[in-house]
């Protein structure tokens, strides 16, 4: 039944839109569609962004792996390499601080009336994506492949059952959140 739903293109477009509405609604309620909240996180003055992300990861990690154990979900880990994850990550980080939004929150910011997100953010992200698309043939065989590790997950890499990773990580996340809250953030 689920497989049929997954294959129904029309239904999927609607589901994507509805999940998006939920996502945008939550991001806005969380305050992370606000430039000020994001930049203050990067300046380590406000930990709303990290609290939301860590909580989402905690809940999603347990939920998705439970669903997977029940045969109701499949994992889709992204492939990567030192060249893509490290360099791409740092370039993104640079942009994160300058723009003050990420691709998801910039869309939410537009929805809440931020014109810098619409006129500046959207424009820049589209240009940047386009530049990458043009440079891709030159990059893909070289730097993007350096230190390639494919789409390996931590349990696969450590050769353990996923719950051997999930349980300690969950405790670590709870510990981190408790520490942040306790430190007055």
């Amino acid at each position, binding site marked *: 039944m689920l497989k049929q739903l997954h294959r129904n293109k029309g239904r999927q477009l609607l589901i994507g839109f509805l999940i998006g509405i939920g*996502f945008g609604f939550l991001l806005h309620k969380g305050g992370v569609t606000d430039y000020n909240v994001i930049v203050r996180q990067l300046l380590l003055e406000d930990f709303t962004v990290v609290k939301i992300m860590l909580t989402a990861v905690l809940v999603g990690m347990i939920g998705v792996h439970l669903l997977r154990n029940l045969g109701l979900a499949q994992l889709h880990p992204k492939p*990567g390499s030192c060249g893509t994850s490290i360099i791409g990550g740092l370039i993104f980080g640079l942009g994160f601080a300058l723009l003050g939004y990420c691709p998801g929150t910039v869309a939410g910011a537009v929805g809440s009336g931020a014109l810098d997100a619409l006129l500046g953010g959207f424009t820049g992200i589209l240009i940047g*994506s386009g530049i990458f698309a043009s440079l891709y043939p030159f990059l893909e065989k070289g730097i993007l492949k350096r230190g390639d590790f494919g789409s390996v997950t931590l349990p696969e890499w450590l050769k353990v059952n996923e719950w051997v990773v999930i349980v300690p990580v969950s405790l670590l996340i709870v510990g981190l959140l408790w520490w942040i809250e306790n430190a007055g953030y």
Partner: protein
Amino acid sequence: MEWLTTARWSPYLVGLGIGVLSCLAFLLSNKPLGCSTAFARTSGMLEKMFRGDKALRKKYYRKFPPIIDWEWLLVAGVIAGAFISAISSGSFNIVLVPDVWAQAAGESAVTRWVVAVVGGIFIGFGARWAGGCTSGHGISGTLQLAVSSWIAVCCFFIGGIAMAMLLFRVILGV
């Protein structure tokens, strides 16, 4: 139902909600949440508009065709969902220059726009280089325990924190 229209919720409640949405995305759509691909596809659509089908010969646009797909509608939904939240809580505000920026660098909308475009270029470029953004890697990838995502999210924040400190503390001196 007053809680539905308050402007701000606990980050833990929001995180719980996003975690649940992630589960729903896997269950109902067999997909992780992600946002940067939608921008890559839209960039392709724009290039197609201006350069015609020549644009489609780009290897990257054969890998990520400029079509409206699930993730594109997800991002469209994000705009709508944030709008609904903003309007219903009375916090929809047209803002040209955010407060933290204005306090550090002044009220000029043009300056803010230039910096935003440059920042956006790095975001768009970096996200495609890394193969995802704070949603795709930062949330979806990390919850799947993908090594690529754990490395990427650490670098997102190392780069972001370093640049923010450099920009605000050193360059702008606040």
